[in-house]
């Protein structure tokens, strides 16, 4: 961890205390696991802090860990254009309640990322202005990137026109 990353992590820990569940480092990137109640506050702070602001939300996506107790995970990638620094935020979720507060109020660009995550994993984002499916048809009933979804899909779930 370089000095900048260390100071960021220290500030996060100091400010959010127990909401920061875990901090890891992987290939020079910092990964911060936070609770889902804190995710909007952490994102707001990351965007607005004066030391090293992160104005760019590069990506939001889900993970289905399947065998882990907390099955789902939502990942956020933020990038600081000023410091040329990247930070990864993670939120772990129980299978019974896969919901994370939406960060579209903080990063409007996260709108479609959260829709995609909802479409593929069924993770809901309370507070999202328009949480519709992004890729699959509106009336599709399944979440294709979940591990228990078969590769070739559920037969008959996606209708085709008649050959005629």
């Amino acid at each position, binding site marked *: 961890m370089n000095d900048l990353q260390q100071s960021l992590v220290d500030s996060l820990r100091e400010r959010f205390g127990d909401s920061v569940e875990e901090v890891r480092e992987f290939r020079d990137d910092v990964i911060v696991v936070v609770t889902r109640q804190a995710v909007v506050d952490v994102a707001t702070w990351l965007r607005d802090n004066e030391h090293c602001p992160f104005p760019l939300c590069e990506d939001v996506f889900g993970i289905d860990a399947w065998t882990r107790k907390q099955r789902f995970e939502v990942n956020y990638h933020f990038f600081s254009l000023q410091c040329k620094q990247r930070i990864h935020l993670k939120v772990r979720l129980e299978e019974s309640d896969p919901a994370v507060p939406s960060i579209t109020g903080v990063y409007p660009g996260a709108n479609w990322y959260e829709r995609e995550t909802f479409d593929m994993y069924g993770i809901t984002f309370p507070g999202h202005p328009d949480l519709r499916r992004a890729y699959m048809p509106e009336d599709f009933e399944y979440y*294709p990137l979940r591990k228990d979804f078969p590769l070739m899909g559920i037969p008959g779930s996606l209708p085709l026109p008649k*050959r005629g």
Partner: protein
Amino acid sequence: MGLESALGEGYLTTQLDALVGWARKNSLWPMPMGLSCCAIELMSAGDPRHDISRFGMEVMRFSPRQSDVMIVAGTVTYKMAHVVRKIYDQMAEPRWVIAMGACASSGGMFRSYSVVQGIDQFMPVDVFTAGCPPRPENLFHALIELQKKVQNSSVLDYRDRKEPMFIS
């Protein structure tokens, strides 16, 4: 006129099927249904180096109502299948379909829940073309084979098609 000067004072006998087939096959107007990277090869088929107009097919029509042969060039997802079928239904008969490339023919490398494993599941196909994507030459091969089929089809029942052709 060219025909008169070629025939001179004489006359010509033929069959209606042969004459209409000959006219149809040399003026196939394609509907470029470009859906992914095959569409790029479809575009290069029209460039001066490959020159699709040598076969009387250079008039790419972006309106289905003016086209005769739909070239489905690319990956057809279940969501897109309805659109492809709707455009096909808008084409006036007689109409033909070329499945260009592995994806349109069989799903290709996308063995997945979202991709239709071959467009013949929801529309009739006359020629399947292999390749990922096929070179323009391979598309021309498919078009020439389709021309043969058009030439040999009946005026009254052009749908008198036998098995679809496979171009490898």
